[in-house]
């Protein structure tokens, strides 16, 4: 390990803020880019499952006058 303490790893001789901000923003973007399609796909499958059940199941609704 190059740095001898957590403090010096965070500070990086004055460049720490720049370096850590760059890495954090990158991490955030990566999380968003992975999470968005995963969530969309799950939601779509759920939606289709509900639709399928509605189409297949017996009609329980009473007809209203």
């Amino acid at each position: 390990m190059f740095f001898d303490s957590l403090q010096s790893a965070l500070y990086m001789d004055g460049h720490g803020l720049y370096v850590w901000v760059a890495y954090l923003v990158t991490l955030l973007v990566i999380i968003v880019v992975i999470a968005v399609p995963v969530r969309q796909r799950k939601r779509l499958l759920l939606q289709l499952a509900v639709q399928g059940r509605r189409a297949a199941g017996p009609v329980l609704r009473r007809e209203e006058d």
Partner: protein
Amino acid sequence: MWSFFHKLGSPPWLYSIAGTVLRYLLPLTVLALASGTVWGLLFTSPDFRQGNSYRIIYIHVPSAVVALAGYYVMAIAGAVSLIWRMKMADVAMKATAPIGAAFTFIALFTGAVWGKPTWGAWWVWDARITSMLVLLFLYLGVVALYEAYDNKEAAGKACAVLSLVGMVNIPIIYKSVDWWYSLHQPASIKFTGESTIDSSMMYPLLLMIVAFYALFTCCLLLNMRTEILRREARTQWVKKLAEGS
């Protein structure tokens, strides 16, 4: 060979093979990204001129490399869907655009944050930065153009043409550091001849480039799976899949 192409055009086959690939590739990608980041951030020595700020290279260069490679994927997919009317190529093109935009954004953002301590400015209208900004707008343009059409077939065609025309920008980005005297340094890693980067810095960088390529592939497959389901929502195999979930 031909049966492979035939399968590639089949949505259920592509959906399931993408799922299988992701099951192994995604954990590997996370592992490679994590180890490359720790290596680059904590286990390399600082650059003799730039100090510690150079550590941003481990995300800046890989994201820029992959942002450019992603454009090839998008343009080639666009060409295939234009010429052979392959539906899955259109899916691939649409899936690439937002990911490419995300990687280009990472490259521009980390570049700005690196520029401040190194050049003294967040932003300069340097040839490479400007052409990368154009790349971002091209990606976003494809995303927006796709949404603008109600007729998705026409949308696919328009986007394919836009991405092919945008190819003009790619050699400009590559050559910008040689053509214009600018703040960006020319390439340090060379396939032919001596690289001008120390090997202790080059290995973590190469690992990160591989990891970013893998990440791009994962995101592409994830987006394609979602898009395939959306388009095939009325088919029997998707209905069966939804019931099983």
